[in-house]
């Protein structure tokens, strides 16, 4: 992480006398607070506030700054995103500001009933009075601060540098490219004017800053690479992570167009400049093709299993045969006995055995013998059918009036059986004939093939192609809405597109049925035609599905044929679109994020806000504009101004920034004037250091306005309040 938050609770608050000022740098991204006269701020944290709810207790708590994400798992952070008090560098949400100040003072170690030290706090350039007055109110009334100084960050940097080195000769130009917004002030020290132009405007979520817009663009472009990849195991890129990536990898191209052309050509320099981020990934265990012994072993196993099954079937069959034999023997014996028994004792005899009449026994006997024979595999089905036909259809031919009612019933039953069995036979016959026909055709095909293989193959392939096209087209029609990006100007992106004509018709019918019935009363169903609707609707549904099946079946046949005879044939559907690439094993490349063009595309928006749709001038142009806005009297100072241009702020950490800025300003200013762009030695902390140095100086107490002043003169006086910087 390029920026590290320091949020240790300080313990030496009481050491400082109450005249010792506290210095606060209230930046758009980071909040720095510390004691005057020191080299570094004591506490640094991100200037955001979150108010999540605790998962178990349900209370809403406040968390300031960024923290270890592991601890945040106890809180439900879904409804509260991080919120910032700023709207493009101007504080407007004072409730959040209050939370932040609370936290800041708390970590500085404040105790006691109020903050007794004078406070020097930063504000942006041209801070509106309302913001200032609310800030003053907050400090005086909530914290009891005795006196407050409000200053602008860039001044302090300059002051600091001026005291430390004398590079800047009296006239300088400060470009403050904070992470929050870019402001450049033509700063004329010891001289007249100061023309800020703020490049951040309305809705500019340049930060909620230019920072986060860069970041967002970055994250979207890296996400788009994921869309191509199959594995979405990668967790979503969080805002902080993307910011880190940005600070680490982005650079500013000296000229965007030429850099981009490099990448487009795919030149070697482009390769070098591309960074690849490999995410953790474990390869799935590769399935090696089974070796010889494996195959042999598996085959043997299968054999054994098959044999076992066969044995079992055998055993069952033989046991069944035994049973049947026994049964038939018993029945035979019974019949034999029956013959010997006298007539009048037949019923009693039979009741012992469990059969009611002789016929029954006889029929049972014939059945068992038949099944026995079947199991032994000697009998054909037709014979059996014939036997039963001869037996059972005896009554059919006898006309009705001779038979008794029972017999009539019996006759009906026999009739029914006969027709069904005849029907079955007929169907069998037809199938048999069809098979013969197909056999004949196949033979013909074979002959054709043998005599002219080339032609035959060509014909077959052509047929296959046609069929597959037809099938695919039908499929495409069905799923039309899903594939095209449905940016329909007509506005109706819905089921209406995906349906084919028949389905649309059905929908239309349904809707008319539903809506046409007039308001108030539902008169559907009074007329007969209404119910016809149902018939139409259901029929439509069925018809649609059957049609393509024949084609598909034909296609299947043709492709199997082709596969048999043509070794080079690959079925069209298999070789088709590679969208079904999820069968392909995931490789290392799937888990990489490649940062190529994005590296310099993101910071480009500082110089060219048109890329994100914001209609403003870029940084370099703005610098020129600022100088031009100087009133006529100081035109002579132009040269001196461009001679010393100072960059500060988080954004100027991008490599290549200085050169680009210089080139940009050179394009706008008149030819030949000296331009010198310098970066501050520590762009992030220097502002605070300057402020601390100033606060420790002698003039500070006279520059602040005190609580007494505030109560007497009120907020409006702040309009005229300004810190005077003197040397």
């Amino acid at each position, binding site marked *: 992480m390029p920026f590290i938050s320091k949020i240790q609770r300080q313990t030496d608050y009481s050491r400082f006398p109450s005249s010792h000022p506290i210095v606060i740098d209230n930046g758009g991204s980071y909040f720095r607070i510390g004691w005057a006269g020191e080299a570094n701020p004591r506490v640094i944290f991100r200037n955001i506030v979150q108010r999540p709810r605790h998962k178990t207790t349900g209370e809403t708590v406040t968390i300031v700054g960024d923290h270890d994400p592991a601890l945040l798992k*106890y809180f439900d952070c879904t409804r509260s995103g991080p919120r910032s008090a700023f709207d493009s560098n101007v504080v407007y949400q*004072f409730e959040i500001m209050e939370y932040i100040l609370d936290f800041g003072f708390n970590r500085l170690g404040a105790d006691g009933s109020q903050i007794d030290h004078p406070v020097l706090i930063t504000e942006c350039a041209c801070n509106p009075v309302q913001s200032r007055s609310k800030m003053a109110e907050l400090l005086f009334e*909530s914290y009891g601060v005795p006196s407050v100084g409000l200053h602008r960050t860039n001044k302090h940097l300059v002051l600091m540098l001026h005291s430390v080195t004398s590079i800047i000769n009296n006239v300088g130009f400060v470009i403050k490219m904070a992470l929050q917004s870019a402001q450049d002030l033509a700063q004329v020290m010891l001289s007249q004017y100061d023309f800020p132009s703020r490049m951040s405007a*309305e809705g500019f979520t340049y930060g909620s800053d230019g920072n986060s817009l860069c970041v967002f663009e970055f994250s979207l472009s890296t996400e*788009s690479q994921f869309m191509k990849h199959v594995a979405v195991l990668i967790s979503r890129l969080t805002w902080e992570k993307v910011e880190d990536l940005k600070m680490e990898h982005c650079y500013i191209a000296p000229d965007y167009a030429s850099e981009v052309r490099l990448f487009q050509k795919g030149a070697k320099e482009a390769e070098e400049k591309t960074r690849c981020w490999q995410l953790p990934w474990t390869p799935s265990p590769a399935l090696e093709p089974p070796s010889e012994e494996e195959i042999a072993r598996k085959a043997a196993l299968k054999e054994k299993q098959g044999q076992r099954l066969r044995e079992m079937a055998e055993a069952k069959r033989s046991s069944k045969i035994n049973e049947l034999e026994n049964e038939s023997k018993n029945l035979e014996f019974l019949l034999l006995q029956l013959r010997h028994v006298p007539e009048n004792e037949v019923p009693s005899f039979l009741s012992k055995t469990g059969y009611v009449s002789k016929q029954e026994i006889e029929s049972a006997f014939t059945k068992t013998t038949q099944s026995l024979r079947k199991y032994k595999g000697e009998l054909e089905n037709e014979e059996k059918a014939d036997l039963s036909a001869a037996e059972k259809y005896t009554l059919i031919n006898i006309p009705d009036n001779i038979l008794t009612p029972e017999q009539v019933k019996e006759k009906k039953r026999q009739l029914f059986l006969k027709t069904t069995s005849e029907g079955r036979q007929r169907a069998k016959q037809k199938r048999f004939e069809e098979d013969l026909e197909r056999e004949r055709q196949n033979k013909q095909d074979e002959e054709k093939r043998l005599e002219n293989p080339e032609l035959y193959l060509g014909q077959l392939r052509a047929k296959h192609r046609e069929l597959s096209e037809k099938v695919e087209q039908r499929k495409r029609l069905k799923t039309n809405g899903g594939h095209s*990006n449905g940016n329909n100007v007509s506005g109706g992106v819905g089921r209406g597109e995906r349906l084919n004509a028949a389905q649309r018709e059905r929908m239309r019918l349904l809707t008319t049925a539903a809506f046409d019935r007039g308001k108030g009363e539902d008169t559907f169903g009074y007329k007969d035609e209404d119910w016809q609707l149902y018939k139409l609707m259901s029929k439509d549904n069925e018809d649609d599905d059957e049609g393509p099946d024949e084609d598909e079946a034909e296609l299947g046949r043709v492709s199997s044929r082709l596969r048999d005879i043509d070794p080079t044939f690959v079925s069209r559907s298999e070789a088709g679109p590679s969208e079904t690439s999820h069968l392909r094993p995931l490789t290392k490349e799937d888990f990489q994020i490649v940062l190529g063009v994005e590296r310099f595309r993101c910071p480009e928006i500082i110089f060219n806000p048109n*890329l994100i749709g914001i209609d403003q001038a870029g940084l370099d142009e703005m610098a020129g504009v600022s100088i031009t806005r100087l009133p006529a009297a100081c035109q002579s100072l132009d040269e001196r101004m461009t001679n010393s241009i100072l960059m500060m702020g988080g954004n100027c950490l991008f490599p290549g920034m200085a050169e680009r800025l210089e080139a940009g300003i050179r394009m706008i200013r008149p030819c030949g004037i000296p331009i010198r762009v310098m970066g501050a030695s520590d762009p992030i902390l220097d502002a605070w250091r300057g402020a601390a140095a100033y606060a420790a100086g002698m003039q500070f107490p006279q520059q602040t306005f005190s609580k007494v002043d505030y109560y007497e003169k009120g907020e409006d006086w702040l309009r005229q309040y300004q810190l005077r910087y003197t040397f």
Partner: protein
Amino acid sequence: MEREVIESDLVLPTHLGFKKIQMYEKYPKGQARGRHWKHLKQIIQAENYQNYPPDVPNCEFKSNTFSWVFSPDINIESPPSMHPCKRICDITGFEAPYYDPRTNLRYANAEVFKAIRSLPNDYVQRYLALRNAAVVLR
């Protein structure tokens, strides 16, 4: 609260000794809090009615004390750019002289175009939103 949360001192304490008025007194529970803060645009607008015309410099020099004094802001927004607009491809970042009339995305060459046509709608909207060109239905 879990122990490690308390130990890490993550949460802002509700009662702070050095404050005169605590937060929970200022904003009692259940009250709508955030609605009454004015945005920057509104603040600037409110100021403008009372103040000087926008062109006047907002700071003056006091030569006698060698110091400068600044008056508060009117409007320091940056003007629109004078340079011609640079058009780059929404997907790849290359230069993009063409745009797709159906989706309004800019693209650099034919392959990118193929990719655009196969994108589902919400990806398209996100790309457009990057450029501030998405259709906002609100």
